[in-house]
């Protein structure tokens, strides 16, 4: 294979085939090509059946440039030898690729390529549209956060990538349906609880104790309820947007369909694979994230007993913060006044609000000791240092506020600083 054969080797083959002496064959081969040459010179054209046609072609004189000197030179007219293989020989040589010629794609190929390109551009449009939708829902979510800071999950979800958003709504939708069944209170009361919070969202902590003092027993479901309520509309809007984006996706799938069978299958398969992988990833994430905090209060009856005692405590000394946490040291006097009712409120409503816990942490989050609005210059490290005298407590703040990526915290986000208790 790919050797350079000489006349000697060729003659060997001929001698074997014709059963003649090698020397004889060699002489014959040599004279064969000599005759071709002679005939070429004489007649300019030699046809050899089974091999092809040798031809002398006249080349006209032309001007050229000397590569070395750059001078213009005139190439004299001459003739050159061309060889055109016989049709039979040509086909024999091309036999490995013969099936390519029979399956000439000619007309289909360009249209197929163009459609594939169209499909790609259409796909590119989806993220843009989806990003716009995500922005819109983010604004909605931000409005929600002003009213209610209790949905860190949803806010964080909005900040997240679109795919996460898509998946989250799918998972959350059934959850929203579940929560109303748990809460047995009539819905008419819910706006009442929400209304006082709308005008002055900063004094949220102060507002919560009011219902608590009036009806400490009923307060438990009430605090939970606005959370559920405000979560629901946010999720609904997201659900709508996802429905829209899914419709767009379906459209794309439809447009992709008329493509050539192979190409569309490939595209769709890869698309579905990516989608499935994302769904799996998010399912795992969501189950870990959501079911942990909600299971805790129901699983520990001890915490309910604690609730009773803490409620009694808070009713006795309204301003006294429980001294369970050595870390919770308010930094400024202005914040001290704020954090005291906040912490008392937090401890009082602790069983009602189930705080998300940091997995594998040495401390458990037992309440809210303060709130901090993220303004320019503030970092999670700063805040952690301020409240806990250490930067090691950033994960707790993140867990408390549902911050997924500690490097990206929205500006003006109200952070709840957790009150920690050693496990």
């Amino acid at each position, binding site marked *: *294979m*790919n*050797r*350079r*054969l*000489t*006349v000697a080797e*060729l003659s060997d*083959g*001929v001698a074997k*085939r014709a059963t*003649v002496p090698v020397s004889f064959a060699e*002489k*014959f*081969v040599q*004279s*064969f*090509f*000599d*005759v071709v*040459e002679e*005939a*070429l*010179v*004489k*007649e*300019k*054209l*030699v*046809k*050899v*059946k*089974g*091999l092809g046609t*040798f031809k*002398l072609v006249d080349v006209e004189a032309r001007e050229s440039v000397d590569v070395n000197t750059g001078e213009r030179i005139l190439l004299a*007219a*001459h*003739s*050159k*030898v*061309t*060889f055109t*293989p016989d049709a039979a*020989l*040509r086909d*024999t*040589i*091309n036999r*490995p*690729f013969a099936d*390519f*010629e029979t*399956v*000439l*794609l*000619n*007309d289909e*190929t*360009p249209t197929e390529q163009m459609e594939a390109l169209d499909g790609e551009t259409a796909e590119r449009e989806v993220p843009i549209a989806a990003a716009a939708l995500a922005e819109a829902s983010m604004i909605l979510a931000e409005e929600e956060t002003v009213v209610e800071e209790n949905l860190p999950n949803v806010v964080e979800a909005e900040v997240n990538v679109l795919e996460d958003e898509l998946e989250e709504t799918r998972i959350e939708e059934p959850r929203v349906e579940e929560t109303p069944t748990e809460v047995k209170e009539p819905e008419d009361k819910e706006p009442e609880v929400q209304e006082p919070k709308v005008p002055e969202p900063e004094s949220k902590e102060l507002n919560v104790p009011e219902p608590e003092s009036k009806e400490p027993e009923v307060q438990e479901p009430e605090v939970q309820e606005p959370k559920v309520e405000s979560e629901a509309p946010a999720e609904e809007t997201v659900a709508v947007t996802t429905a829209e984006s899914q419709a767009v996706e379906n459209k794309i799938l439809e447009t992709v369909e008329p493509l050539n069978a192979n190409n569309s299958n490939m595209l769709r398969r890869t698309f579905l694979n990516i989608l499935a992988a994302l769904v799996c990833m998010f399912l795992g994430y969501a189950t870990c994230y959501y079911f942990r905090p909600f299971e805790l209060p129901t699983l520990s009856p001890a915490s309910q007993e604690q609730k009773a005692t803490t409620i009694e405590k808070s009713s006795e000394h309204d301003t006294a913060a429980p001294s369970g946490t050595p870390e919770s040291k308010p930094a400024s006097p202005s914040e001290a006044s704020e954090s005291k009712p906040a912490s008392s409120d937090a401890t009082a409503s602790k069983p009602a609000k189930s705080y998300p816990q940091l997995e594998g942490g040495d401390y458990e989050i037992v309440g809210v000791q303060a709130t901090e609005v993220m303004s320019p210059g503030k970092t999670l490290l700063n805040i952690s240092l301020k409240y806990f005298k250490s930067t090691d407590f950033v994960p707790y703040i993140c867990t408390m506020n549902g911050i997924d990526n500690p490097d990206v915290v929205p500006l003006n986000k109200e952070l709840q600083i957790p009150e920690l208790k050693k496990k």
Partner: protein
Amino acid sequence: MNNKEFIAALSQREGYPLRDTKMLIQHLIGEMSSQLEDGNALTIPNFGVFEVKKRMERVVVNPGTGQRMLVPPRLALVFRASTSLRCNTKKGGEAK
């Protein structure tokens, strides 16, 4: 010069009968094509080189209709004349 004339000229030069020459030519061409089919190149001194080259597939556009066509790859037999043959034919070409 067609095939018949070529065989005649060859037989006259070698002094074989036409039938034997025809048979030998067939064997020679058969051997050549089988070697070329294997991908080998044939170098014939003072004449030239026969070799098989792969032509890659390419897209061509019909200038009349603007139609784009994909030309499949193929194996082509190419012949390159040796320098001596080129010189000889060059002269011959001018002479004629």
